[in-house]
């Protein structure tokens, strides 16, 4: 009997290796596949299309004799899978990650072959036509970026894949690299063909050892197929800010991962000052489908408004059915959290959802009808980011989460610009004072010579006004999204849950915020 068990890092962290060994020791052939993305069922055992999970070593015998209570029926019929529109994750659960045979059998390399036939100009045209936007967070049209690089003269150009997926609540890049590495590599080779680049780099964070191992193996096996394009894995060193593209380029060059001022755009002066395409894993992994015959039109037909195609959404945090859910843009948060995610894992009411990682806004359940769309989120002072959704139940202290956002920014700031480097530290201090109920006048303020200093200390609402002001400065004065977007989680938490900052005095917080809006 063929037993299929995922070798995704998440499944392995939950004992998939031991489970695979147990089945193998009973004389069965075990295939290690990518993960279906139903993480609450991992480790998921698949026998002839039927699923069993979450499986433990104690379940092995019952699974084999068909009496296991962990049976979930046919996997492809499972509502979580059946409701999805999978393009980027079309192979998830279906293939062995580094098997070239499996990749070719599932239409692998057809995008690259066609790209080579039609040439650079038409590749760029088709990517523009598809409406594909950068999936890293900024949502910049990928085709326009490619066109700029293609049109910039340069003897050496680069394709850089941003695989520094540092946002908490996101794991789609990891799942692509571990589950379907050839799709990413094919996308990069196509990008190379489009802009005339022969060298690619995949910058992977060091927290993803499995992804690094599998990418290296995949690159070794497919070197002949992608040639003359060459590609190399580079490992990050634990700096969150290196997910920002210019900081990533500095890191690749062997420098401190400090953000560069733009312009010049990386498309014109990127890695080693040469024209460079920097795209996220999900952007590049979507490309082989777009370049397949008629793929661009099919992609463009999905989604809404200016957000075209599909988005691999990651359901994380305190959610019952967590995992990878790829669907066309336009789905609401309420569908994602309640219908698909099944509410919280703890069974308690949902208090908040953070969309878009540590720099994304905390969204209140009252606003869950918002449609998954770049522009709709921007209009609501929120962001889609990398498509991660982290659910919190009613035990969460949003004041503590706001403080953590500032603390995280302080820990991970590259130090290049003042609003982020200093502002985040001051932000932590102000939040501490708000939560402590304001502060006394300090020893300098009370000196007789300090004529203009207040002598009575500060009320917490005055500190709230100061925080609002600080957040404005960070938002508009920071060089990159780290300092620029940290105000989103902070201000959204303050606006939606003032009781977690100044218990019993929510009115005072609202008054300050209203004054600021006016």
């Amino acid at each position, binding site marked *: 009997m063929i037993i299929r068990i995922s070798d995704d890092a998440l499944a392995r962290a*939950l004992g998939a290796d031991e489970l695979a060994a147990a089945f193998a020791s009973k004389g069965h052939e075990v295939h290690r596949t990518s993960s279906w993305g139903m*993480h*609450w069922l991992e480790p998921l055992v698949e026998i002839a299309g039927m699923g069993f999970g979450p499986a433990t070593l104690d379940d092995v015998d019952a699974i084999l004799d068909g009496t296991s209570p962990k049976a979930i029926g046919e996997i492809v019929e499972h509502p979580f899978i059946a409701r999805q529109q999978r393009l980027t994750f079309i192979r998830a659960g279906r293939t062995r990650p580094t098997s070239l045979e499996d990749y070719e059998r599932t239409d692998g390399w057809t995008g690259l072959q066609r790209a080579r036939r039609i040439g650079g100009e038409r590749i760029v045209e088709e990517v523009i036509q598809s409406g594909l936007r950068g999936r890293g967070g900024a949502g910049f049209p990928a085709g326009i970026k490619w066109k700029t690089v293609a049109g910039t003269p340069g003897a050496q150009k680069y394709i850089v894949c941003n695989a520094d997926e*540092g946002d*908490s609540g996101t794991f789609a890049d990891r799942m692509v690299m571990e589950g379907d590495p050839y799709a990413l590599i094919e996308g990069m080779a196509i990008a190379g063909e489009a802009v005339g680049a022969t060298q690619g780099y995949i910058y992977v964070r060091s927290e993803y050892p499995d992804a690094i191992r599998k990418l290296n193996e995949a690159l070794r096996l497919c070197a002949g197929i992608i040639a003359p394009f060459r590609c190399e894995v580079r490992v990050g060193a634990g700096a969150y800010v290196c997910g920002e593209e210019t900081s990533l380029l500095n890191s690749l060059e062997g420098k401190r991962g*400090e953000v560069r001022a733009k312009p010049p755009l990386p498309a014109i002066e990127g890695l*080693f000052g040469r024209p460079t395409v920097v795209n996220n894993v999900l952007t590049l992994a979507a490309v082989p489908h777009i370049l397949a015959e008629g793929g661009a039109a099919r992609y463009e037909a999905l989604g809404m408004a200016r957000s075209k195609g599909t988005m691999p959404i990651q359901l994380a945090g305190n959610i019952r059915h967590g995992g990878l859910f790829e669907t066309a843009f336009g789905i609401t948060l309420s569908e994602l959290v309640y219908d698909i995610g099944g509410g919280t894992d703890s069974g308690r009411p949902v208090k908040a959802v953070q969309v878009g990682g540590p720099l994304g806004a905390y969204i209140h359940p009252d606003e869950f009808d918002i449609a998954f769309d770049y522009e709709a989120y921007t209009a609501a002072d929120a962001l889609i980011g990398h498509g991660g959704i982290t659910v919190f139940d009613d035990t969460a202290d949003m004041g503590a989460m706001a403080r953590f956002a500032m603390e995280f920014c302080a820990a991970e700031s590259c130090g290049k610009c003042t609003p982020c480097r200093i502002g985040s530290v001051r932000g932590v201090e102000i939040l501490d004072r708000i939560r402590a109920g304001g502060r006394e006048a300090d020893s300098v303020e009370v000196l007789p010579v300090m004529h203009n200093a207040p002598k009575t200390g500060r009320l917490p609402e005055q500190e709230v006004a100061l925080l609002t002001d600080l957040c404005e400065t960070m938002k508009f004065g920071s060089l990159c999204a780290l300092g620029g977007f940290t105000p989103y989680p902070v201000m959204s938490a303050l606006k939606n849950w003032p009781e977690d900052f100044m218990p019993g005095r929510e009115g005072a917080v609202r008054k300050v915020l209203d004054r600021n809006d006016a």
Partner: protein
Amino acid sequence: MVSTKQERVTEIVADHAGREGPLLPILHDVQAAFGCVDAETEALIAAALNISRADVHGVVSFYHDFHAAADPRPEVQICRAEACKARGVEALIPAAEKAAAGRVKLTTVYCLGLCSAGPSARTGDRLHARLDSAGLVEVIENAR
């Protein structure tokens, strides 16, 4: 001892000869070989790459993965980012610290990418997810 260190660093630098932007890969190998990148090694690398010691030190001190001094204790990384907080990692920390008791080095990381199945931890290249207090204590006690 000094000469062996110098030899090893020279070897590592030679392994990466011809690569574009070799400093980070070199530092990763040095960190893996010696458990740290100390001032002496920084000077050796700087000389080998013909860059200044300040350049090397700037890079070493920027990244969380490189350490100035080696720590002989086994390390357990615990994710304390938003998704793991939402799943209750903070409540596990007191027990974890008690179990570590100076024998094991506990480090905070922000995200191991197992956000739907937290709290999670990492020892070496081994990941652990869906940890409760007892599970995390077991990971820490088994850390070698």
